[in-house]
């Protein structure tokens, strides 16, 4: 019979089926009139989940009679409790509630998890204000078996067999939990994958082809989803808006806000307002719709065909321009990030991108504060390594940079798996 129960466990039957089979087996073994399995709720209360009679028929859960004083004893002691009016050596004297129910004998056995839980600590010793605790097994269920017949007694029970049954019950419950956890994880992974696909699809599919300039951009993913975004917005008169943004935080919350930010920039940017006005409106929009600790750094620029480059750097990592001389110019932030302060004012700066200017690079690392903290903690070498330090500067200052050389950079960065820093918009002269 135990083998049958083991089979029920391993074949992945629904948890209710597995537990019902175990209650039936327990009733058969003990010759009880009925058996009940009670769920131990997180509040400490009990709830009847399975009730079966000796004919293997389910009983109405709300009409099952159990002795709560017996159950209380099991909950407190976490040990088997037997009530038997016929024998003096029963583990406890007949309980009042058992008497009210007309029970002649009852047995209640705790169903405990197999592993000891660190969250469920039992005070062991209290000395000098300190409590030494030991980890104990989580109480999952209580198996309750009852007899109203005076001739029946549980005192001669084979406890070992009953304990094996309760261990089987614990196994069924834990397997079901693991299965539920695995299913939930698979569902979340699937949703993250869909989110990631949507994020990738939101990236510009094509870049503007200008007489003197070539624009491109790419994203290096360090996590499935993240708070980085970039876009190119076509404006009147051959001008283009270039946007790179980075939401503070990680994962799906950041990716949701990144999508929102990209959409808002796309809509407001297309109005072709002065840049500072565009960013002020974006800021106001985010302040009204996001929690106080959610914000974004962004770099938004408008580039015209003559090479005039107006930009607002809102707390973002500096863009880098490689000049003909080989020197690298940085376009630093002089503004608040967006989404922090609704009253924030933004200022626009201007730079010239002469036809001979080899390269402009607008990266996103982790948001500016985080990346600036790289050297601070010496824990990671992401942005400072890339932008201020070796990689980007070396790359951008190299003798013949072109947008086509993004490939090796991308590869290098991916291989290095540097910490979360990703999209990079590159504007370069056509070679």
């Amino acid at each position, binding site marked *: 019979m135990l083998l049958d129960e083991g089979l029920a466990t391993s074949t992945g039957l629904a948890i209710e089926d597995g537990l019902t089979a175990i209650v039936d087996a327990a009733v058969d073994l003990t010759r009880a009139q009925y058996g009940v399995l009670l769920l131990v709720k997180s509040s400490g209360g009990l709830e009847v989940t399975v009730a079966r009679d000796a004919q293997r028929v389910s009983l109405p859960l709300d009409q099952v009679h159990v002795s709560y004083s017996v159950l209380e004893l099991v909950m407190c002691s976490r040990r088997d409790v037997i009530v038997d009016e016929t024998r003096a050596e029963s583990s406890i004297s007949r309980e009042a509630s058992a008497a009210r129910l007309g029970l002649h004998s009852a047995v209640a056995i705790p169903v405990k998890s197999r592993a000891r839980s660190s969250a469920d600590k039992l005070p062991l010793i209290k000395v000098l204000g300190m409590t030494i605790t030991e980890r104990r097994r989580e109480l999952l269920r209580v198996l309750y078996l009852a007899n109203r017949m005076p001739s029946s007694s549980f005192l001669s029970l084979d406890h070992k067999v009953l304990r094996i049954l309760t261990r089987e019950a614990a196994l069924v419950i834990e397997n079901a939990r693991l299965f539920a956890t695995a299913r939930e994880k698979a569902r979340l992974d699937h949703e993250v994958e869909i989110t990631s696909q949507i994020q990738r699809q939101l990236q510009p599919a094509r870049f503007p082809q200008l007489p003197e300039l070539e624009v491109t951009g790419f994203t290096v993913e360090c996590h499935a989803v993240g708070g980085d975004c970039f876009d190119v917005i076509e404006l009147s008169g051959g001008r283009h808006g270039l946007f790179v943004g980075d939401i503070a935080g990680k994962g799906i919350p950041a990716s949701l806000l990144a999508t929102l930010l990209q959409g808002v920039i796309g809509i407001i940017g297309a109005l072709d307002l002065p840049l500072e006005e565009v960013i002020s409106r974006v800021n106001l929009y985010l302040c009204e719709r996001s929690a106080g600790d959610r914000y974004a750094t962004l770099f938004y620029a408008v580039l015209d065909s003559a090479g005039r480059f107006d930009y607002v750097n809102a707390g973002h990592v500096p863009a880098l321009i490689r000049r003909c001389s080989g020197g690298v110019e940085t376009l630093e932030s002089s503004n*608040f990030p967006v989404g922090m302060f609704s009253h924030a004012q933004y200022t626009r700066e201007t730079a010239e991108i002469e036809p001979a200017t080899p390269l402009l690079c607008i990266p996103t690392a982790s948001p500016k504060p*985080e990346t600036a903290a790289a050297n601070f903690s010496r824990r990671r070498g992401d942005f400072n390594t890339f932008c201020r330090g070796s990689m980007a500067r070396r790359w951008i200052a190299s003798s013949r940079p072109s947008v086509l050389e993004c490939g090796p950079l991308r590869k290098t960065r991916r291989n290095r798996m540097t910490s979360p820093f990703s999209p990079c918009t590159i504007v370069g002269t056509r070679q």
Partner: protein
Amino acid sequence: MPLRMTEEELDSITAVAMKGQIVLGEESNAFREKIEGLLVAGKKRIVLNVANVTYIDATGVGSLVASYHSARSHGATLKLANLGSKFREILQMTRLLTVFDTYDSEAAAIQSFAKSRRAQA
């Protein structure tokens, strides 16, 4: 390294010494809860000593700003003391140096509260 915060009450000014990182997760939550707790307890003058903050990420900065907003709504003032060069750089980049009052030492921050109280009197 988890964020450790110890507070000290000096003449109705609460100085919170912070040690560790203010990053996404438990640390930034703990920081928010700490400040929220102080504000709910009616503390109006708070100095954050960040000398031993070894790292702050974007979420940490967000928590700092959220605490700033929260303090203002409670009629309280939050001041920062002992900013390291990188912490200062972060606040510079995000222009938060124009928002937070910052001091070179905890004593200077505490003294500034006393001065403003004298000025009000």
